[in-house]
C-alpha cells in the first residue's frame, strides 16, 4: 500500500465516483518522500475502497481529519515536451 497526500482548497475537489486529476505527493519513506506526481485517479472517503491511502491537507497546510483512499489510474505529464 502506498501513502499519498494532497493539498486542496475545498473538499469538493475530491469528487468521488469519477476520474479526476490531482497533484499528489508520496508519503512513502525514503529519499523521495514529499515529491509530487500529477495523476489521473479515483478517490473515496471510504478508506478501504481503494488500495492506497490519501491524506488531505488544506490550503495553508492544515491537516484534515478526513482520510481518503485513492486508486492511481495513470501518471499525467503536464509539462510541455520541450522542457522534458
Amino acid at each position, binding site marked *: 500500500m502506498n501513502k499519498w497526500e494532497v493539498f486542496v482548497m475545498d473538499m469538493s475537489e475530491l469528487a468521488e465516483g469519477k476520474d479526476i486529476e490531482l497533484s499528489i505527493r508520496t508519503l512513502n519513506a525514503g529519499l523521495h518522500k514529499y515529491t*509530487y506526481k500529477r495523476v489521473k485517479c479515483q478517490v473515496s472517503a471510504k478508506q478501504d475502497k481503494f488500495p492506497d491511502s490519501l491524506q488531505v491537507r488544506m490550503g495553508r497546510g492544515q491537516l484534515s481529519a478526513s482520510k481518503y483512499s485513492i486508486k492511481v489510474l495513470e501518471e499525467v505529464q503536464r509539462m510541455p515536451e520541450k522542457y522534458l
Partner: protein
Amino acid sequence: MSKISAPKSNREFIEACVKAGDAVRIKQEVDWENEAGAIVRRACELGAAAPFMEKIKDYPGFSYFGAPLSTYRRMAISLGMDPASSLPEIGKEYLKRTNSEPIAPVLVDRKDAPCKENILMGKDVDLCKLPVPLVHDGDGGRYVGTWHAVVTKHPVRGDVNWGMYRQMMFDSRTMSGAVFPFSDLGKALNEYYLPRGETCPFATAIGLSPLAAMAACAPSPIPEPELVGMLSGEPARLVKCETNDLEVPADAEIIIEGEICPDYKVEEGPFGEYTGYRTSPRDFRVTFRVNCITYRNNATMTISNMGVPQDEGQLLRSFSLGLELEKLLKSQGIPVTGVYMHPRSTHHMMIVGVKPTYSGIAQQIAQLAFGSKLGPWFHMVMVVDDQTDIFNWDEVYHAFCTRCHPVNGIHVYKNTTGTPLYPYATPHERKYSIGSKVLFDCLWPVDWDKINDVPTLVSFKNVYPKDVQEKVMSNWTAYGYPEVK
C-alpha cells in the same frame, strides 16, 4: 579603508560563530523531516546559537547550518566586527562599506572552485540526492532554497541579479518558486522571456558566504557580486556554470543549474513565511527545471526557518531595507537622522528620524519610500523628530501615541503594490499583489508656535538643568539605588 577580516565562505563563518559561542555543533543524527526545521525554529525564537547539524538522517556526508544571521551578533561576525557591536555601529559600518568604491568580482578556474568537487548531470540529476529539509510540518514541500541566491542575468541589459526567491522541490528535477511580478526576476520573465517563449537560465547557490547571502537579500541597486566585494573588502570569487553562461560563487556549498520555464507553472506552497504566518495560498508559480547539480565534498546546506520573530528573514531584511531607504532619502536631500525597521515589525514598519525643517516632510518621506522599488515590502511609515531615538521603541511608541494627530497625522494610500504575503490583505489583494499603505506623522507641525503651541517634553533629560542631572546621577548610589548600567 582598514583591512576587513570577514568570513569568506560559509565554512569560515561557521568556524567564527562556533569560536564566538554563536553556533553549536550538533553531533547526534538529525532528521531532515521536521526535526532540523524545529531545531532552527526554536533557536530563532530563543535567540539561541545557530545550530550546525553535522549528521543528517539518510544523507551521510552532508550537514545543515541553520539560522545563520538571525541575531545581530552573527551579523557583526559576518562583517568581521566585534560580536558585541551595537546595531547602530553595525549599520554605520554597512553604510560605510556600501558607499565605498565598487569592487568587481574575479572569475576563477573551475579547478579552483570547491563547488565543482561533485557534479551530477543528465540522468544522475536528482534533487533528492541533496538533504532538502521539510522545514515546517504542513509545508507544501521540501524547500531547497530558504537561504540562498537565485542567479540570473537580464537578457538585454546584461545585469546580474542574485535574489532570494524561495524554491520548493516539486519532483526530482523540478522546483517551483515564489517570484513576485514586481521583483527584478519577475519583471524579466514577464517582459522578456514569456512573450518570446524562451527559457531563462538560472543557478541557485546554497551555502553562500554570509556577506553573499546578505547581498542577495539586500534591496541595493548595486549588482550583488560587486556588493559582496564592497562588504568584504575584496573581490568575490566566481566560477562559470557547467550548463549555462552564468557565474556563481566558487566557494558556495551547492549549485543547482537549470532553466526557468516561463509559460509553464506548477504548484508551490504553502510555506511558513517571514510575517510569522502561512499566508500566501498554494498557487501555480514559477517553474525551475534542473539540468545540473554541483556541490562541495561534505556540503553544508543552509536553512532559514521563517516564522514568528525573529529569524534572518526579518532581521537582515529589516536591517538592509532600512539602510537602503536611508540612502534613498538622503540622496533626495531630506535631512533624515536615521531609518530603522524593528525586526519584530517583520519589516513592515519603517521608522524615520528627521529634522522637521519644512511642512509636509513626513508625506514627502512616505511618498518616496512607498513609491520606490522597495515599497512593496512594507506598508507603514512612522516619522518622528530627530530628538526621538528611533532604536528605542519606548520613545517611538510614546511619540506615536502623543504626537500623531488621529485626523491630520494619519495618511492612507490606497491601491498600491503589495505582496501575497501580507497577512492582513484580502484574498483578492493577495492574488493580485494589491497593497495599501499608511503614514503616521509624529512631527509637531512646523506652523505651530514653538514657544506657545508645541508641548514641552517632560523627561529627566529634558526639564532639568545639566548640573542638576549630573548631581543626581553622581549621587544615585548614595541615595540608595543600585548602579545603573
